[in-house]
């Protein structure tokens, strides 16, 4: 857990380093999310000040993009593809299994804080559908069984 003061220091360092880039807001938000796992609401005033934007503008950008989140994610974020190619190869049944196995719906985090589940609309792995991503690791031709194996390999009992 990041201490609030550390969090503010991280945000400050990132905004100072990147604020002079043309179109700096997305690079700043990416750097914050890379460092903290999310973009905390408390970071918005500092970002707004550094870029001479209103807090509403910064919040508007964070909320526009599916990738940015303002809540702490689980230890592992699972992105499950919902797009057509994956549907053609049993993606919907896999989705049911994943939700039942984790006991959560999309955009939720398991009660023990281990897994977050997010939908994604194509991972570019359509030749090996259905596809998912855990962290930065990509998986192809995922079945209920191989999903369970992948979950077990994270070392977190689910």
């Amino acid at each position, binding site marked *: 857990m990041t201490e609030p003061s550390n969090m503010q220091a991280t945000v400050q360092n990132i905004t100072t380093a990147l604020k002079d880039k043309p179109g700096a807001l997305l*690079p700043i938000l990416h750097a914050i999310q890379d460092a903290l796992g999310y973009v905390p609401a408390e970071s918005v005033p500092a970002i707004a000040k550094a870029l001479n934007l209103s807090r509403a503008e910064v919040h508007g950008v964070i909320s526009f993009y599916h990738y940015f989140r303002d809540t702490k994610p689980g230890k592992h974020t699972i992105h499950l593809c919902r797009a057509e190619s994956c549907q053609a190869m049993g993606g919907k049944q896999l989705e049911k299994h994943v939700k039942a196995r984790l006991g959560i719906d999309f955009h939720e985090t398991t009660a023990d804080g281990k897994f977050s589940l997010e939908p994604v609309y194509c991972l570019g792995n359509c*030749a*090996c559908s259905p596809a998912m991503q855990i962290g930065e690791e990509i998986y192809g031709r995922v079945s209920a069984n191989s999903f369970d194996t992948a979950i077990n390999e994270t070392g977190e009992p689910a």
Partner: protein
Amino acid sequence: MSITIYVPCDSSAISLGANGVAAAIAKEAEKRNIEIELIRNGSRGMFWLEPLVEVATEQGRVAYGPVHSGDVSGLFDADFIQGGAHNLALGLTEELDYLKKQQRLTFARIGKTDPVSLDDYLNNDGYRGLSNALNLPQTDIVKAVTDSGLRGRGGAAFPTGIKWNTVLNTPSEQKYIICNADEGDSGTFSDRMVMEGDPYVLIEGMTIAGLAVGATQGYIYLRVEYPHAREALQTAIEKAYQAGYLGDDIQGSGKAFHLEVRLGAGAYICGEETSLMESLEGKRGLVRFKPPLPAISGLFGKPTVVNNVISLASVPVILDKGGDYYRDFGMGRSRGTLPLQLAGNIKRTGLVELAFGATLRELLYDFGGGSASGRPIRAVQVGGPLGAYLPESQFDTPLDYEAFAAIWAVLGHGGVVAFDDTVDMAEMARYSMEFCAIESCGKCTPCRIGSTRGAELMDDIIKRRDMNKNIPLLRDLCNTLLNGSLCALGGMTPYPVLSALNHFPEDFGIDDKANAA
């Protein structure tokens, strides 16, 4: 003599275990005291064979696949490092039908070379296009691209040379080249394969574009879902700077071009060029009104070329071999080649680069081998989530922009997703509306409200409620989206919806096609 073994680093190959295979090969070679050079190449694009391991022999590269970590010891036992016989042996890679029948221009190097090795790139015709371009006046570079007949491979198929010419002729202190690498269309992965498998070809293409129009700064707007592409691009860009292929003085010419990768954040709409520019400027990805065209007033209000990865990656071969060489491939007004992506319920999924003019049927059956499930292919969506669904009766349509437009379909970015006969097309139509609702930027009403209403309407239709009222209402709504939306997201969502309704009315509870109309 050391043996060269290739294991792809393409993310699809990795998703099937290529990293484990590479590690197992290294370990087994060490155990057996065999000296090997392990190269992580791009993928050949034959994904049913991935992880595809290749070994360099005197006869050429020999392929084995699909290889799993557990097969590695057996492969060494079979002396695969000398091309030995094994039940996974596929023979010489280049002789495999799937590859041999293709016309690979843009993908010429992919799968053969180490993607981030600049030496490999230079030894395989790399930077020949740039070296020609450095000796040409700007108008001649643009002319070569215009003469080639290259049209935007992102989907809109706008002539690339005309776009470049507009930027060239718009005076400005600062101009930009943007590579649209936000490959959000489901069923497509050719951009990813280029960026992971041959990043220098994109860098070279963008550099040539910069020289042609007088732009000194380029941005690659890359989707965040592609971490491996990001890594390959960043490594390649760094090496290109070190070797003087990027920077203030490209190869001693005194001409400058700088390049930076910027990440998207999971918004499909940012693949639309004006929304992409808003995003690059650090804003919500709201679509802009056109005019002004980006070529006149684009990024930060400056003249900007926005091209797709494949368009830009096709430029080096055009500048190397000439516009005529490229134009001689293809049919009608669709010149050159299109890297098609075979996905979904297909036995042999992969990347098939072909001159325009082959039929969809050849692609699905000669290359794809039919469905993966063994059931009949019932519907094929071509051109991403905004592309029409085609029934079997349209499979003989040639892959050509105009031929597809004539049957109210689109070729788009060349994604082909097949479905077998278990598909429910009303559910697919519902999904298209839902997708549009999730991804709409919200600027225009038809798309923002229409997509949500469309999904609700499809829920009713799926439950067979008020059919006499709801089917005409769906058509009316699609008409509003089609004609009233600001960009292609709202404007083309009716393609999958109405094509599903028109070609598969039975899935919508309509018995005969006449009543569907």
